[in-house]
């Protein structure tokens, strides 16, 4: 936390946030929002939240910008210039917002001082995790240890939410009866196609590294899964959705998203069969070769992270292909 640097970044965050709301070109607004997310991720890096910043760089600045652009592409690009707004409406909106702002500002002095290591948030269970995580699980990255082990239940259902969201988007947008447009997709430039072909394998290799090395460095199933999904989205962007669906059919996509959740929940279920609690990995040392109770937890984290990565990868791609092709699963952008 360096005050001048934080001030610079935070004011840039506010400015780009304003720009993304005031710009009338919705495509530009999406790009400005991407810039907002990226600046926010720099702020979080400054506060020591590297895993969160990594996720935000992949998700907020990367994938969600693509989602916005896909939607704007399918609807009107410009918001109309003259909107007849009732004067009382905009006045009352400003009044409500200022009222909420003033009340929240009033509450600020009740918080512990920013960066105080002795505050209640930092001195209770958070401190326990820092002091015991490596001893309990042999995983130096405490965030991964808490994510996949101590709070595995939470993460399991978050993964399920991603899967359910992908299913929901399928059921909202998917069309089975429509006139198939026979028009060939426009040829993209040679440079883009060749560059993508070279980039995608390296992206996927890096994503696998991020998943596998989440124990020792920032990363893990969520970040790696988003990068894997982004590599598929990049392929679909440069050619079309159909090209990717030749390799992975719609069914494969949604089934492997479900299998990801199944890996997580199923791996948690095995300790129950061994007479222990749900998601208590330490009981698994009798099954895994050459492990003790501590290493069983470390290895189990890798397995559930793989499940998370599968769900997130296929979930992100399912959302993209539905949004980009407006439910037709044809050409996309």
């Amino acid at each position, binding site marked *: 936390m360096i005050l001048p640097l934080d001030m610079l970044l*935070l004011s840039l965050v506010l400015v780009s946030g304003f720009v993304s709301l005031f710009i009338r070109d919705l495509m530009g607004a999406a790009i400005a929002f991407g810039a907002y997310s990226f600046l926010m991720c720099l702020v979080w890096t400054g506060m020591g939240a590297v895993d969160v910043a990594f996720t935000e760089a992949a998700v907020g600045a990367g994938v969600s910008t693509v989602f916005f652009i896909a939607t704007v592409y399918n609807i009107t690009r410009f918001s109309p210039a003259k909107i007849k707004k009732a004067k009382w409406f905009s006045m009352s909106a400003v009044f409500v917002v200022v009222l909420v702002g003033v009340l929240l500002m009033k509450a600020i002095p009740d918080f512990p001082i920013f960066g105080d290591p002795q505050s209640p948030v930092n001195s209770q269970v958070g401190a326990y995790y820092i002091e015991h995580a490596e001893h309990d699980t042999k995983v130096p990255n405490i965030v991964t240890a808490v994510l996949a082990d101590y709070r595995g239940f939470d993460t399991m259902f978050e993964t399920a939410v991603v899967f359910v969201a992908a299913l929901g988007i399928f059921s909202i947008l998917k069309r089975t009866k429509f006139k198939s447009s026979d028009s060939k997709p426009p040829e993209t430039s040679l440079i883009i196609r060749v560059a993508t072909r070279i980039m995608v394998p390296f992206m996927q290799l890096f994503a696998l590294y991020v998943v596998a090395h989440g124990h020792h460095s920032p990363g893990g199933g969520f970040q790696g899964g988003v990068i894997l999904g982004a590599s598929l989205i990049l392929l679909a962007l440069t050619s079309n959705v159909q090209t990717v669906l030749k390799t992975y059919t719609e069914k494969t996509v949604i089934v492997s998203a479900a299998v990801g959740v199944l890996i997580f929940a199923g791996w948690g279920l095995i300790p129950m069969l061994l007479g222990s609690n749900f998601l208590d990995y330490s009981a698994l040392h009798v099954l895994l070769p050459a492990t003790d109770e501590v290493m069983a937890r470390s290895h189990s984290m890798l397995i559930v992270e793989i499940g998370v990565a599968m769900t997130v990868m296929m979930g992100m791609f399912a959302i993209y292909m539905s949004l980009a092709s407006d439910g037709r699963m044809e050409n996309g952008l």
Partner: protein
Amino acid sequence: MSQFFVDYYNYIIVVLVMMLGLWGMIAKKNLIQKCIAMAIFQTGIILFYISMGAKKGSSIPIIDHSHGAAHHAVTAAEYANPLTQILMLTAIVVGVATLGVALSLVQRIHSEYGSVEEDDILEKCR
């Protein structure tokens, strides 16, 4: 006043970001802009959590494990709070999934009403 600012500047920015998001959700008539405002409000909340978990003079929450690193007792004040970070990490990924649901609803509304302006939609609903 300046001491108040130095002590709490992150929380002040959080409130400003949340005000911006709330205003956008209420006052903007375009559904895409409403979605952007919702995402901005969400990042405000995430910034709030991360600010609570930050500690002055602390390192990132990865314990030094290089070869030859001296094994000394780990004290909590040396590392940023991992708990608030993991809560927000999962919230970001779930946030983008729900954002996808919101955008798909917007597309559905557009194919049904031919517009994403709130006034036009209300006009056609009558």
